[in-house]
């Protein structure tokens, strides 16, 4: 295992120190493992997200005006804990309530649930939106449902913009829910990630194979298949997503994310093929992000997220945002 770290035990604390050193405009609470925006909130809804570490820039890279008020960082691939979430809520609640944006993993869901109970005890109103957009997982009410992945980024942006407009907690939660429901994602891994505390790759992936539908923690996906070229992979992903929901007839926000060890040039190569595959299906992309937005430590590969938008969602998407990983208009 070759990593720029000091010890597997200190990765999270060290990374938070680095965020604090690099970004004086953010407030980093090392004790509670929180990254908090420092701008005054003045009686508007606050938006909080969080999750296991290892998916950077998600979530700490999205803290700042127009997006998240705070991000709670868990250990690597481990959801944060209710006391962290409560500490975050206590810090950022301005009296208008707090929206929790939660990726659909049992740990995250349970911990945010507990946090909501604790917050209620303290008189902080909360609402939660759960993102469950990974089409690699078969949907079923008998199971934990789908994993939450890339749509989270878009939900965080839209919710942050809605909160910035001064909407009520119910309104912010409603549009976040709408975006969450309108999003679908799928990822493909060319290599496994290596969890620092484990020290070796989470799974074996032979030189000539890839994992289609991989999870952001290295969870197995739909199938292990022979390595394909970019065009083939683009076709697989777009087909899986577009077969799961109808993305025609409305403007779409597309997010192509690297998984952590994929160079930008490869993302552009496959984006060319994704764009072709989308336009063949009559899907019209109105906004695009290409880069590392939701990663899996040092995994090579990519994930695509599509969100079916409308004028309101696009307007909120275009609203100014100033975070370390997403910034425009400010």
């Amino acid at each position, binding site marked *: 295992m070759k990593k720029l770290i000091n010890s597997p035990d200190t990765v999270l604390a060290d990374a938070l120190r680095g965020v604090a050193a690099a970004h004086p405009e953010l407030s980093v609470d090392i004790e509670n493992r929180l990254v908090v925006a420092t701008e005054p909130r003045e009686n508007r809804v606050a938006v909080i997200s969080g999750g*296991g570490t290892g998916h950077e820039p998600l979530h700490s890279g999205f803290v700042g005006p127009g997006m998240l008020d705070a991000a709670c960082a*868990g*250990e*690597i*691939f*481990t*959801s*944060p*804990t*209710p*006391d*962290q979430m409560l500490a975050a809520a206590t810090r950022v609640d301005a009296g208008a309530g707090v929206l929790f944006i939660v990726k659909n*993993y*049992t*740990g995250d869901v*349970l*911990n945010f*649930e*507990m946090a909501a109970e604790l917050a209620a005890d303290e008189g902080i109103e909360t609402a939660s939106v759960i993102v469950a957009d*990974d089409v*690699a*997982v*078969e949907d079923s009410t*008998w*199971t*934990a449902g*789908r*994993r939450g992945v890339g749509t989270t980024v878009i939900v965080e942006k839209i919710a942050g913009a809605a909160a910035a407009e001064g909407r009520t907690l119910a309104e912010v939660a409603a549009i976040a829910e709408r975006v969450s429901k309108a999003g679908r994602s799928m990822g493909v891994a060319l290599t496994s990630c290596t*969890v620092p*505390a*484990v020290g070796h790759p*989470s*799974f074996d992936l032979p030189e000539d194979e890839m994992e289609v539908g991989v*999870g952001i*923690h*290295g*969870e*197995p996906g739909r199938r292990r298949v022979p390595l394909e070229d970019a065009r083939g992979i683009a076709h697989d992903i777009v087909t899986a997503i577009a077969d799961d929901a109808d993305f025609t007839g409305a403007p779409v926000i597309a997010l192509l994310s690297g998984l952590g060890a994929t160079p930008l040039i490869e993302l552009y190569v496959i984006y060319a093929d994704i764009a072709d595959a989308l336009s063949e299906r009559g899907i019209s992309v109105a906004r695009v992000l290409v880069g590392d937005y939701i990663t899996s430590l040092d995994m090579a590969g990519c994930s695509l997220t599509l969100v079916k938008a409308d004028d309101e969602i696009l307007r909120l998407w275009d609203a100014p945002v100033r975070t370390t990983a997403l910034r425009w208009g400010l």
Partner: protein
Amino acid sequence: MAGEVTAAQLETWLRRSADVLAAHAEELTALDSAIGDADHGTNMARGFAAVVAKLDAAPADESPTLQALLKSVGMTLISKVGGASGSLYGTLFLDMGKAAPAANEVDADGFASIVAAGVAGIVGRGHAELGDKTMIDALDPAVAALQDAAASGAAPAAAAAGAAEAAAAGRDATEPLVARKGRASYLGERSAGHIDPGAASSALLLQTLADTLADDGGAGA
């Protein structure tokens, strides 16, 4: 005294559990690698190390009540473990604490009820049923064994031994199952053929409880 479970015994159990979980961390994480995200061993070891640190930090002259001890363990696990197991094991101990008396000991029957309340707390949070391939598959039979043994007048050590056996059997029974709860459920059919890591850690906890009570019971019998 052989018929009682004491707070001191539970403290010993927790300390020994921390060692056992640390020793088995790699094994638990390997199980979680196969059908999860490769952190269960690290999570449990971290959480129980924090429990021990808190026990160490407590004033040596005051021995806590069962209620206080269990609640404090629950809070520590909730704030140090993270993930599904953090909230679930945290709830286990919190709800055990709520069901426990503000006393230093409890009889076998009372102990069985306390554990049953804790496991009911897990089910209340996670909504898992027997056969969903979770820690419940180890804990549910363990509770039944504890309760049966207590009802038939067994001493706590004997009851715990039976519970540990039941938990181990429940753990092994998770292997062929398709997970319906937790991260492993995302795998669908691909989750079959692997033991559930949470069931494995539950079995370890119960085995350690049985070992602790046996040693103590043996010494004090």
